[in-house]
């Protein structure tokens, strides 16, 4: 598995996978739905899979001495690694912003502030995308577009729901919004819930993808 992940990084990761990590800096933009940062992360997953298809990666990899069912798991874990790095970077940049700007400027009027509760939302968004996109993609790796449209649409819908919640539900509007130091236990709890959902959905994506890919003809 380690070799497969190294191969993914060396041959398959699209430059946007790295470039979009810098989008963590978007948390400095005032009044912006920061969950959108993670939509770009989903876009880089799409680009990686698209590039892999154009490069004949699946046939190359399956001819290597590896179990066929490990091929999709290696891809998902690699992409998941980038997602986790983006989560950490976004959290770190958000914390820096919290320390650097006045509290009233930190408050986000377009969605949640760049705090750890935002990372909970982001983790739910990414986990959902992983499940929908990879499960669809590994049904037929020749078709990258349809799974991305399905996954991307769901991501946008989820982001929309989180924005609506921010404006309609006091828990999101007040408790989860603002600086990390305010209502910290609730924010941490929401982060924990988000990460758990992410882990469960991504694990499900691995299992479904491996099962489907094993039956796929290359």
């Amino acid at each position, binding site marked *: 598995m380690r070799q497969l992940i190294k191969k993914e990084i060396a041959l398959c990761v699209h430059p946007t996978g790295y470039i979009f990590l810098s989008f963590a800096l978007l948390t400095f933009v005032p009044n912006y739905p920061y969950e959108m940062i993670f939509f770009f992360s989903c876009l880089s997953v799409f680009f990686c899979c698209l590039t892999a298809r154009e*490069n004949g990666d699946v046939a190359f990899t399956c*001819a290597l001495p590896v179990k066929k069912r490990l091929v999709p798991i290696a891809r998902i874990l690699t992409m998941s690694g980038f997602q986790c790095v983006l989560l950490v970077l976004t959290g770190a940049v958000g914390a820096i912003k919290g320390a650097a700007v006045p509290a009233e400027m930190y408050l986000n009027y377009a969605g949640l502030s760049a705090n750890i509760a935002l990372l909970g939302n982001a983790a739910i968004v990414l986990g959902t995308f992983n499940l929908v996109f990879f499960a669809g993609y590994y049904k037929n790796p020749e078709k990258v577009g349809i799974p991305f449209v399905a996954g991307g649409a769901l991501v946008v819908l989820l982001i929309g729901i989180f924005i609506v919640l921010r404006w309609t539900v006091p828990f999101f509007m007040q408790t989860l919004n603002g600086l990390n130091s305010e209502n910290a236990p609730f924010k941490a709890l929401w982060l924990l819930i988000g990460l758990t959902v992410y882990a469960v959905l991504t694990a499900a994506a691995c299992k479904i993808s491996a099962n489907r890919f094993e039956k796929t003809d290359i």
Partner: protein
Amino acid sequence: MNALTVRDLTKTYPGFKLDGVSFTVGQGRIVGLIGANGAGKSTTLKGILRLISATGEVSVYGKDMRAEEFAAKQLIGYAGGGFRFYPMKRLDAIRKAYAAFFPAWDQEKYERYLARFDLSEEKRGKELSDGMKVKFAVALAVSHGAKLLIMDEPTSGLDPLSREEFCDHILGLVRNEGISVLFSTHITSDLMRIADDVVYLSRGKVLADCPLEQLLSRYRVVRFGARGQAEAARAIGIKAVKNGYEGLLERGNAVPDGASAEDATLDSVMIHLEIAGREGEKCGN
């Protein structure tokens, strides 16, 4: 022990069925997998490598491809039709990623092959000619200690000189390193140069699986004046030619008066067997 044993390999697509393909590749043998376009050659190779979900049993030096996939694939060097992968990547990047999967990777051997093939690792895949791509694929395949080389139409698209070079390299590998080879092709001149055995596929079924010489010596090509004469002689795969009709006759069958016979070539055997669509032509069975 055979280098490769394929038993009852079956795969069904809409409109095509690979139907119970069975054959073996002996150690140190070069086996040509032949057949018309769409006969099932690539499907067979994909089935062997488990790139498709076919049923049946495949073992490499006794290691079952399903149960011992990792160990079995360590023994295989696979080269598709040229090297179509990662055209924008430099060859050294591809080699590094590839070599990491093989504990027995021999870098010195790889570099010797690069030098012999006049290949530079600084090039990108897209900068290689078709012949160079095949050579790069072969260099990768043989440098990890593979004992069985599987190639899918490796000479397709190559000029005659490159094909000749390729055949020389394959012969060298077999003679010097004891590697066994299975390669698919529809270029019969390459087969005549290097193949020991042939597996002839037609419409997803094995029509012949035997030494090349045995297949050729089994038939004669006979020219008849009239179709009725050819049918009466029970010629195989009768077709109209310039001055009459032509078909295959097994060597034991008498050539009728007025008909002329000559030694069969691989092309003529393929053409007439294909026309006949005949089953049960497995020599040795």
